[in-house]
């Protein structure tokens, strides 16, 4: 039994090592997030500020195509606010009675429109590199929220001897260190609606919280349900053990 556990532990450790291999950048600083842990929750204030950062900075290049305006209810907006946010965007609809496509203001049921009509247009506007969609970014990278935050705040001058091409930027945490994305966050790039000072650190933290929600909006429900289910199962399994002992009592 102990040997089985030892074998399992080796396998598990090995798998983590494998994962660490994949992210070749510098070791990630671990951060405290409101949404990690058994009782993790998405901080609504941070999410609203993060959404503002997305709208004003990131959405110039990055799409968020899996999020619909109606999903923003989770950020604390009410129905009217969501209608207003949606109406600021236009989406293509049609064909109309003449067979033509037309533009109309977005509705809550629409998804957030992409900055580019297709990936080729995206690449053409970004020196050949396609800025990836951000809907799942926190789940799609080893290190998750810690990694994305480190990336956003990890731009630095290249070490001696490393020459950068025009289209390259040096980042301490990007695998291979050379990324086509220029540092997106500047001090006070955004004026927060709630008055919070918009330091690079603050904006990075807020947008990561927003993106963590975007990657998995059902996370809070999942953890809430998990606590109830596991509590139930612990009690139930305990009961089943008592039943087993009772039934086997006359044999032992």
């Amino acid at each position, binding site marked *: 039994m102990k040997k089985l556990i030892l074998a399992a532990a080796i396998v598990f450790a090995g798998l983590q090592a494998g994962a660490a291999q994949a992210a070749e950048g510098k070791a990630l600083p671990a951060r405290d997030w409101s949404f990690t842990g058994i009782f993790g929750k998405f901080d609504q204030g941070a999410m609203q500020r993060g959404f503002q950062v997305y709208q004003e900075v990131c959405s110039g290049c990055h799409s968020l195509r899996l999020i619909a305006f109606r999903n923003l209810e989770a950020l604390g907006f009410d129905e009217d606010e969501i209608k207003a946010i949606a109406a600021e965007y236009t989406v293509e609809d049609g064909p109309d009675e003449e067979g033509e496509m037309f533009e109309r203001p977005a509705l809550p049921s629409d998804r957030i429109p992409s900055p580019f009509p297709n990936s080729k247009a995206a690449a053409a506007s970004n020196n050949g590199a396609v800025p990836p969609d951000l809907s799942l970014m926190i789940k799609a990278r080893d290190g998750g929220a810690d990694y994305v935050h480190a990336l956003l705040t990890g731009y630095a001058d290249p070490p001696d001897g490393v020459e950068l091409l025009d289209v390259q930027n040096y980042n301490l945490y990007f695998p291979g260190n050379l990324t086509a994305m220029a540092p997106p966050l500047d001090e006070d790039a955004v004026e927060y609606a709630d008055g919070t000072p918009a330091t690079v650190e603050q904006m990075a933290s807020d947008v990561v919280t927003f993106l963590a929600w975007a990657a998995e909006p059902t996370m809070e429900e999942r953890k809430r349900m998990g606590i109830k289910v596991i509590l139930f199962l612990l009690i*139930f399994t305990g009961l089943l053990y008592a*039943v087993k002992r009772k039934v086997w009592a*006359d044999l032992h």
Partner: protein
Amino acid sequence: MAETANPGTDPGHSEDGETRRDFLYLTAAAMGLAGTAAVAWPIIDSMNPAADVRALASTEVDLSPIEEGMAITVLWRGNPVFIRHRTAAEIEAARSVPLDDLPDPETDEVRAPRPQWLIMVGVCTHLGCIPKGQRVGEEKGLFGGWFCPCHGSHYDTSGRIRKGPAPRNLDVPPYEFLDDTTIHIG
């Protein structure tokens, strides 16, 4: 059978031990049943309309472009909805029909509280075809409303069945006026 050398537990033959054992089994069974029900619910509920389907469950329509005597068709929950801006003559005709003449008696006032606007689901209550009469020049049937070409149901200017196999008047969907020119259906 060997007796247990367990000081704390009854061997199970005394009445006390039996009720305790039964209580244990009963509690375990009850929890098991509750757990099974709790597992069954998500499985069943996953088949109910999902969030994106529910988001399209209602639609808002701007009535201002619809002139008197004209009609538009919008899509609601996958079905066509006829919205007609009725003329005074059509309203008069609808309101003067005696209820006895109607296979499915219903007053026009109930169907169209704002008489110039008639809003109905454009699906024949017989077997589901889409009646003609929305466009200029289409067959409107014997009562000036709509006509279903599949099996010959005639609907009047209030969308009520007058002649033919359809059992019910064209359904009026739940809707409300958000203001004088906008309705919210569903």
